[in-house]
């Protein structure tokens, strides 16, 4: 399928990045990138600032040239095609609305360049889609940030590009407007069937909107998959901590069965299903999501289905309405995070309380990182936990006298 910029895309085109490398004087933005985005999908590139995601987007848009590698859109090699000849449109992070043109002229700009008939009527139509047609004659400076963002979106989608690039387009919006825009983007994508490539550092945004998320770190893709898959089964420490929070432990594999491995975490055996663990021998890093963990006031009976760690001490309780986050310091292991839904009234454990934590064996996961390279928890208890224990000891001593 060849894509011409003279006509509207009937459907999204797939994007293929083959062996892309991008070097700038002094640093390498993208080490080695291979990526295939199927037509019609909503793909998110997620990563912290400086991970190379915006550079990737700019390479696809044609605003930068790769040092090495090829870019294919709809099967056509566009590596050496200039930006204005690519069937791609971008919603820029800064919106980049032309300040000297009216909103209507901004939206109609791309259509006029492609000499598409009745550009004005189409521009009005796109503005109606984002509910801004009544401001068509204004200048961008007269609009609020949210309105400008919607104009930027209209200016891109009016061209019906085979591939729409979104560079942190919702970053400047407040929470409510952002939710609204997320829904709008998603419905536009479903309606029009375009391929969306969305670059963001907001993990929640990536997970709610995209059907495939690629987590980028230091110029390479760490892990790629459906949002649920990435969240439930992170492969690396970076993904485990960047996409939500994780409780991670390191230890030696001491037992292996057909279905599970047992890891010795500072003397406590922790079982992880073999299918959910990337490494099955030697030093490994394993983890569990904080909301999968249960908090117990009394030592529960040990069972084969649940991993049990404890006792530890609650060193921090933060109540956030729908849930409560507890930080539990466990001697020898470190500080673990527990999210508990507020099913009863208020927190179930106070600061300083002695607690046990447990989770179902099938909720654990094993990472593929070398534990030596991965962030390790301090072997000893941290200062806050020591302080809490000291204080309890002092209270007990005072009560005795």
């Amino acid at each position, binding site marked *: 399928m060849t894509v011409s910029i003279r006509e509207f895309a009937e459907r999204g085109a797939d994007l293929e990045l083959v062996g892309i490398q991008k070097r700038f004087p002094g640093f390498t933005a993208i080490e080695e990138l291979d990526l295939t985005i199927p037509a019609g999908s909503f793909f998110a590139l997620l990563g912290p600032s400086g991970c190379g995601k915006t550079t990737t987007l700019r390479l696809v848009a*044609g605003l930068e040239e790769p040092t090495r590698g090829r870019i294919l859109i709809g099967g056509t090699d566009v590596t050496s095609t200039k930006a*204005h000849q690519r069937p791609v449109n971008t919603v*820029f992070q800064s919106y980049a*609305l032309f300040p*000297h043109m009216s909103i209507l002229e901004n939206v109609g700009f791309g259509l006029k360049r492609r000499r598409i008939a009745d550009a004005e009527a189409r521009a009005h139509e796109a503005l109606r889609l984002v509910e801004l047609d009544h*401001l068509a004659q204004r200048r961008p400076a007269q609009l609020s940030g949210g309105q400008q963002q919607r104009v930027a979106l209209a200016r891109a989608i009016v061209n019906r590009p085979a591939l729409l690039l979104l560079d942190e387009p919702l970053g400047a919006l407040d929470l409510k407007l952002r939710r609204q825009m997320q829904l709008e983007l998603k419905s536009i994508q479903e309606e029009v069937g375009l391929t969306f490539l969305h670059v963001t550092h907001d993990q929640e945004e990536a997970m709610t909107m995209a059907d495939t998320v690629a987590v980028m770190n230091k110029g390479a893709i760490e892990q790629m998959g459906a949002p649920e898959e990435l969240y439930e089964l992170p492969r690396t420490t970076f993904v485990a901590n960047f996409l939500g929070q994780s409780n991670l432990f390191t230890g030696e594999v001491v037992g292996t069965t057909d279905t599970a491995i047992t890891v010795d975490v500072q003397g406590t055996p922790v079982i992880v299903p073999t299918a959910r663990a990337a490494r099955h021998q030697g030093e490994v890093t394993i983890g569990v999501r904080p909301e999968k963990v249960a908090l117990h006031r009394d030592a529960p009976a040990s069972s084969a289905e649940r991993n049990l760690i404890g006792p530890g001490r609650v060193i921090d309780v933060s109540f956030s309405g729908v849930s409560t986050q507890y930080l539990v310091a466990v001697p020898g292991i470190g500080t673990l995070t527990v999210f508990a839904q507020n099913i009863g009234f208020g927190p179930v454990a106070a600061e300083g309380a002695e607690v046990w934590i447990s989770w179902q064996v099938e909720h654990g996961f094993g990472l593929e990182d070398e534990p030596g390279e991965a962030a390790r928890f301090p072997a000893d208890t941290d200062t806050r936990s020591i302080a809490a224990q000291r204080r309890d000891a002092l209270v007990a001593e005072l009560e005795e006298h």
Partner: protein
Amino acid sequence: MAFAAFATAEAQPQAPRKKSRIALFLLLPGILYLVLFFLTPLVSLVLTSLQAPREFGDIGQYDYAFNWQNYVDVVEAYWPHILRSFGYALAATVLALAFSYPLAYFIGVKARRWPLLQSLMLVLVIAPFFISFLLRTLAWKQILSDESFIITSLKALSLMAPDAHFTGTPFAVIFGLTYNFIPFMTLPLYTTLERLDLRYLEAGSDLYANPFTVFRTVTVPLSMPGIVAGTLLTFIPAAGDYVNASRDFLGGPDTQMMGNVIEANFLVLLNYPAAAALSIILMAAILVLVGVYVKRSGTEDLL
């Protein structure tokens, strides 16, 4: 239509109005200066332009009158000079713009990555100011004289007729005007281009505009404040210039501009009313031209 309700309810922020005597006091020297050195000569000029020759008086003796005939006389006598002035000034402005825009674009946009080069080039643009304007124009007269290397070489190469001259021709005057006012064109252009947000250019090329279209539809409109400032700073002084067109510099008898005529009337012919009337006409014409130009270029919301 919920958005419309918010959009129209924009409150105009009212600056608190304080009747400050201090502000007035601080403005006083400026106001005094303007009254003394602008308003007084202007009134005097208008009055002079309406004077009539003294009956049975000597040459150069005039009485206050309301002789508006002076204006008709000078237009009749000097209309070629008036047209020539604006023609030369326009040509010089267009040439200076054509020369300065790429230069300013290079310094302000392309050289952004090398601040040292940027500063060096700016210094080079300003450097001619360290030598007197008259000296530089005289130097050009030497460089372009009939015996100069350039002209003899051009004649040797048959690119110029053997009996042709360069100095004293309209080309020489326009060349001199262009050369002398290029820094006044380059600097305002540089200041707007230096602030030009390149992301707009990227957005333009993302929206299917080829480099030339991006330049025409994005770069030029966004640098309009600099173009307007630069052309005004070039056109206004060039229209009134009398050095370049003077016979002592690059001009000849057929290249006299309004400035030269005013000078001759004031200092040689001692026809003060005619000189004053010409000055007023020059001033009024420039004001009207500039007013129309600024209005037409539509840069009010960019300034």
